[in-house]
């Protein structure tokens, strides 16, 4: 194992959805960071990245939350989270401050050291240090990968997750049609315009199942909850998981939206 204490100190940006819906995604992220030789910490004072306020036009709340996040992650060499959308929001922080505001510089500086997890692993840590770990993993399934919008178009994440996945033994990646088209989640969009959102996620569900994949993977829980919810409603057998679950070898937890028999027995 790499020497944990010698690596960079990384602040984990948990993200609301991993926090509330799927802690295993955050645990998997921690595991990957530690395997990469980082010291992962979880700042107590983080909540949400502020995107709901930003996209609703509430600049004041956005700035308040941005300040809180900037303070919470002060001093970490890197900030890493399992979501292109939330990390993308951190990258928007400089836009919410006037350049004369003392937080403006700090926002710029936070932007430069925050990364979505697959981009952090591939672009910052580098494949050389990860390959050995990843090659010990097994996931004997055909998978397909959905490119979430902010990760893809704002942060340029396309090859990183695929390159990492390809190291895992047994993974067969089958690209779906229109992998880069929005799934229709869009934060509050999916409840404000449910019918349009439904059309978009119905298309996505069809493209996913056309591949014959066993599992659809992605890097954003919002999209994954949306796609899993649709696949399940349509009675399709495809499972949905966050990519970090596969990369961290943590696929023994039930997939998104699958019955949790273990826990049910405990109750």
């Amino acid at each position, binding site marked *: 194992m790499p020497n944990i204490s010698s690596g960079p100190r990384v602040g984990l940006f948990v993200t609301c959805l991993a926090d*509330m819906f799927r*802690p295993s995604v955050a*645990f998997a992220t921690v595991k990957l960071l530690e395997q990469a030789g980082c010291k992962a910490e979880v700042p107590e004072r983080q909540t949400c990245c502020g995107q709901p306020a930003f996209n609703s036009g509430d600049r004041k*709340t956005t700035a308040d939350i941005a300040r809180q996040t900037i303070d919470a992650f002060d001093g970490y060499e890197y900030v890493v989270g399992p979501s292109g959308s939330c990390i993308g929001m951190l990258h928007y922080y400089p836009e919410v401050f006037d350049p004369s505001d003392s937080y403006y510089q700090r926002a710029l500086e936070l932007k430069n050291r925050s990364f979505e997890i697959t981009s952090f692993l591939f672009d910052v840590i580098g494949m050389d240090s990860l390959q050995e770990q990843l090659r010990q993993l097994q996931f004997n399934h055909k998978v397909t990968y959905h490119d979430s919008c902010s990760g893809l178009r704002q942060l340029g994440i396309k090859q990183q997750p695929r390159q990492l996945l390809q190291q895992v033994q047994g993974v067969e990646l089958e690209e779906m049609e229109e992998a880069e088209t*929005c799934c229709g989640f869009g934060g509050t969009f*999916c409840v404000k315009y449910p019918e349009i959102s439904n059309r978009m996620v119905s298309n996505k569900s069809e493209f996913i199942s056309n591949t014959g994949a066993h599992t659809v993977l992605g890097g954003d829980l919002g999209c994954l909850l949306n796609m899993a919810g649709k696949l399940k409603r349509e009675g399709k057998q495809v499972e949905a998981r966050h990519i970090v679950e596969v990369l961290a070898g943590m696929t023994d937890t039930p997939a998104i939206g699958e019955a*949790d028999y273990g826990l*049910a027995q405990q109750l």
Partner: protein
Amino acid sequence: MQINTPFFKQRAHDALADANLQKALGNLKAGFPEKRAIAVSRMPEFEQLRDQGRDLKNHILEHLDLYLEEFERKVIENGGHVHWARTADDANRIILDICQQVDAKTVTKGKSMVTEEIGLNDFLEANGVQPVETDLGEYILQLRHDHPSHIIAPAIHLNLEDVSEAFHANHHRPKSSDPAVLMQEAREVLREKFVAADVGITGANFCVAETGSTIIVTNEGNGDLTQTLPKTHVVVTSIEKVVPTLEDMTLFLRLLARSATGQEFSVYNTLSSGPRREGDQDGPENFHVVLVDNGRSEMVGSEFQDMLRCIRCSACMNHCPVYGAVGGHSYGWVYPGPMGSVLTPQMIGIEKGGMLPNASTFCGKCESVCPVRIPLPKLMRHWREDEFEKHLQPKAARYGLAGWAFLAKRPALYKPYTRMASWMMKTWAGKNGRIKKLPLAGGWTDWRDMPAPQGKTFMQAWKEQQKAGGQQ
């Protein structure tokens, strides 16, 4: 044109249920984006051209007054007339005036979105001048008393049967469903109109300051007949269309054709530089340019200035998953798709247009294909800010946001709250792993299951783990 934008949701609902429309939209999705992708892949410097296009437009907008004045000077030098129209009404009156001066009964029209914007056809008709659309798509729409649902493929929402019926009802000829026969029929009918017209009205894709020329870019050639046959040619265009030189124009022509239809060059690129000169074989005797402002000069210097770079290529709507789902008529006014979601609130007011900038997931696809790199999602977000400041958003959304913001700004309260919410949802789901119906979340569960939370929040589980680790 009547403003139906406030009914966006209802119109979208109807559009989603319209099988014919959905089929047409499916064809669009497979057509333009694929052709654009091929054209772009054949041109390695395309991304640089986009940068140049953006920078040049920005430069023009910084010096808009200068280039417009230069353009005006040149048009006059060439023997033409320039009219400045501050509002849509002004523009309509100016155009009617020109028509009445030459005692016009009918006018032929090339395709022009600006004339849609100002509602020219209705105005002319109400004042005794009969406009005849000559672009095939626009002609079909005129027969059907319909409006464009796309800025370059106006009749994209119709199918062959619709066209066949419209022709049969209006041309009094045997009904045919053969596209070639229909095309020929349209040609014959329109040819008479071209010859009979007193005035020809076209739009302009660009106005060249250096030469005082306007240019129209088409694939049918109808525009050429519209502007050369009648004695009077009126160009109706808007102030942001001006470019400094012919050379600059060619940059935009290269961007436009590829972004719009995936062509390397459009079939007809026709320049008009004033009335017929001595020795010219054809051309109009009178040449007028009507420069429409209609709210655009207010955008200069505002947070919406970037929108004035738009060259009306339609790439943003061709690639938009929302447009692709609901089609152009759902947007309820002239300009659909992402560019419409920014422009429409500017032109009809955010109070009526507010639905549009909200109907976006901010997926960013539009911005990624826009030839002049307009940050469309950002501009839609500016409209949402405007709405927020004016308290225009629905109460439920406002209160919901405020409640959430209260918690998100207080980590000590946020944590127990999220713990409780996760626990409640988990309990509600029971052992199912997902929820079929969730109170207050009908927007979600009417259409899809809600995957259940795993149980504890991460913050809670992490803390427990750290504690346990510390005790070891």
